[in-house]
């Protein structure tokens, strides 16, 4: 009941929905960047949606499965292969013992999620298994995975599934991503300092387009575009800054706070990306263009609730299919 890392990736770490309740101590929530991708992967293997998964960036780790397992890949398509044969994302897959998973090409998206049925054994710190690298706690010793790390799973996949001598078997259903990734624009709610932007800057925000700079990471996305200006630059007093906050830096450029953001900040808050838009944003890569679109609070909430309902429906459907499929092998 384990996986082993044969070759380390760029930054592969255990993540869940994040560590909330401790921001008053400066402890940021962290967690998966694309929580939707994480939850969909969990749904496909019949896990609790909030179960911790492995978040991977390209180039990703090379992993050997030391037992038969039920897995699913979600989020980015990193060109997964098992012994040279392509592995689809967003399907449940039964992997046989000793199969080696490799990722060949960053086809789409920025981070992939690997869920295993039953979940991984990992360290819980302050009620979350997310990896907090600064505190060196949570996940696997609070760090990214290294060569030779062994990750235990919580369950043995107990099917008597043979797989007809193949190293993996793709179960035939997948999930429909419609509505989960809002791709047309990055929708935002105006922030406390939005109205201090001059009119031209307010227009530019929605029309000019911005590109994501290479120094963007799990802390924040740095953007490049026409410089924006604040009418009366006032001395800001630091406040808490939640995930998705769009801050205006002194040079007129924007930064969007992502999962590993600092808990407080003192730059003008131009806006806040809506929660329903986090998943699509988290899958965007350096040099990609984004366009902002102002949105009403009520609409943002409705979009989020729709995603939540769709997720629950998908979870039920996945569980039903999986039970039906596996019942044959568990008699």
């Amino acid at each position, binding site marked *: 009941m384990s996986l082993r890392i044969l070759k380390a990736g760029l930054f592969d770490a255990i993540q869940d929905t994040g560590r*909330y*309740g*401790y*921001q*008053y*101590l*400066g*402890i*940021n*929530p962290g967690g998966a960047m694309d929580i939707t991708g994480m939850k969909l992967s969990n749904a496909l293997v019949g896990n609790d949606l909030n179960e911790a998964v492995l978040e991977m960036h390209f180039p990703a780790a090379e992993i050997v499965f030391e037992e038969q397992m039920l897995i699913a890949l979600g989020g980015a398509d990193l060109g997964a292969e098992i012994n040279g044969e392509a592995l689809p994302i967003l399907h449940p897959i039964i992997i046989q013992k000793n199969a080696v998973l490799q990722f060949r090409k960053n086809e789409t998206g920025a981070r992939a999620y690997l869920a295993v049925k039953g979940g991984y054994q990992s360290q819980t*710190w*302050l009620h979350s298994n997310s990896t*907090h690298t*600064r*505190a*060196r*706690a949570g996940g696997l010793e*609070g760090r990214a995975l290294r060569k030779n790390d062994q990750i235990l799973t919580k369950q043995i996949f107990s099917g008597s599934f043979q797989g007809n001598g193949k190293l993996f078997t793709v179960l035939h259903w997948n999930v429909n991503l419609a509505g989960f990734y809002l791709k047309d624009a990055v929708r*935002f*709610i105006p*922030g*406390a300092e939005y109205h201090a932007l001059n009119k031209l800057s307010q227009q530019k925000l929605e029309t000019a387009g911005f590109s994501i700079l290479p120094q963007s990471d799990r802390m924040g996305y740095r953007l490049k575009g026409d410089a924006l200006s604040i009418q009366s630059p*006032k001395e800001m*007093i*630091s*406040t*808490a*800054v*939640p995930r*998705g*906050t769009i801050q205006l830096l002194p040079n007129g450029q924007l930064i969007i706070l992502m999962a590993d953001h*600092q*808990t*407080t*900040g003192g730059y003008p*808050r131009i*806006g*806040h*990306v*809506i*929660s329903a838009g986090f998943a699509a944003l988290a899958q965007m890569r350096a040099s990609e263009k984004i366009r902002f679109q102002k949105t009403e*609070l*009520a609409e*943002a*909430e*409705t979009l*989020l*609730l729709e*995603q*939540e309902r769709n997720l629950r429906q998908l979870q039920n459907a996945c569980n039903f299919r999986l039970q039906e499929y596996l019942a044959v092998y568990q008699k």
Partner: protein
Amino acid sequence: MHIPSGYHMYPCGDHALTIEWGSTIDISVNKSVIALFCVLQEANIKGVKDIIPAYNSVTVVYDTALLKKSCSTKTVYEWMSRQIGKLIDSSVIDTEKKPKLVRIPVCYDLSLAPDLASLAAEHMLTIEEVVKLHMGKIYRVYMIGFLPGFAYMGSVDEGIATPRKVNPRTNVPAGSVGIAGEQTGIYPFDSPGGWQLIGQTPLKMFSANQAEPCLLQPGDDVQFYRVTILEFEKIKADVATHS
């Protein structure tokens, strides 16, 4: 006494809101902030995930998807702001309650205080005078931010208030005590930083494996006392063996 009602409440996107008093850094305002922080922690409002006090504001992070299911108002924000508004109106706070006083040893030896000499020169003070001014006040922890356990404390005597360094250091050692404007703070980790470094504490400001991972909490009082370099080394060794 009631929590002062002259606040401004506004949404921070679709999953957080902020309650803010005025636009100054002031002890009495921060006392209202901490009072509301405590009231909200006790109140256990459905769907609240995080309550974050800052100098003159409290931000509440909530689970919008959960609350939207049962919410009868047009937005979850409306519902949450009403709950918090009612709580502010009905809460009576104890103004006599003394904050916890935390005493923190600091070694001001020049080997651990790379900016102490230049800061003294800039203010035309001796090093001894700077140290005495820094130790001479009880500071309030206004908020924690930037890094886990990084306490923003104030306010230092205006005679030693000094702006951040123009070129921040790429690595400030954990335990370094610094000044930035009228604030003083302690780096809990080795990290980049631009504060003027005037000493170092041998204590660990943050330990992930403790039940209370941070030595300081928002609203605490802090007093620094001087230790020699030998005492510093001894305390540091003791701390290392006990954690």
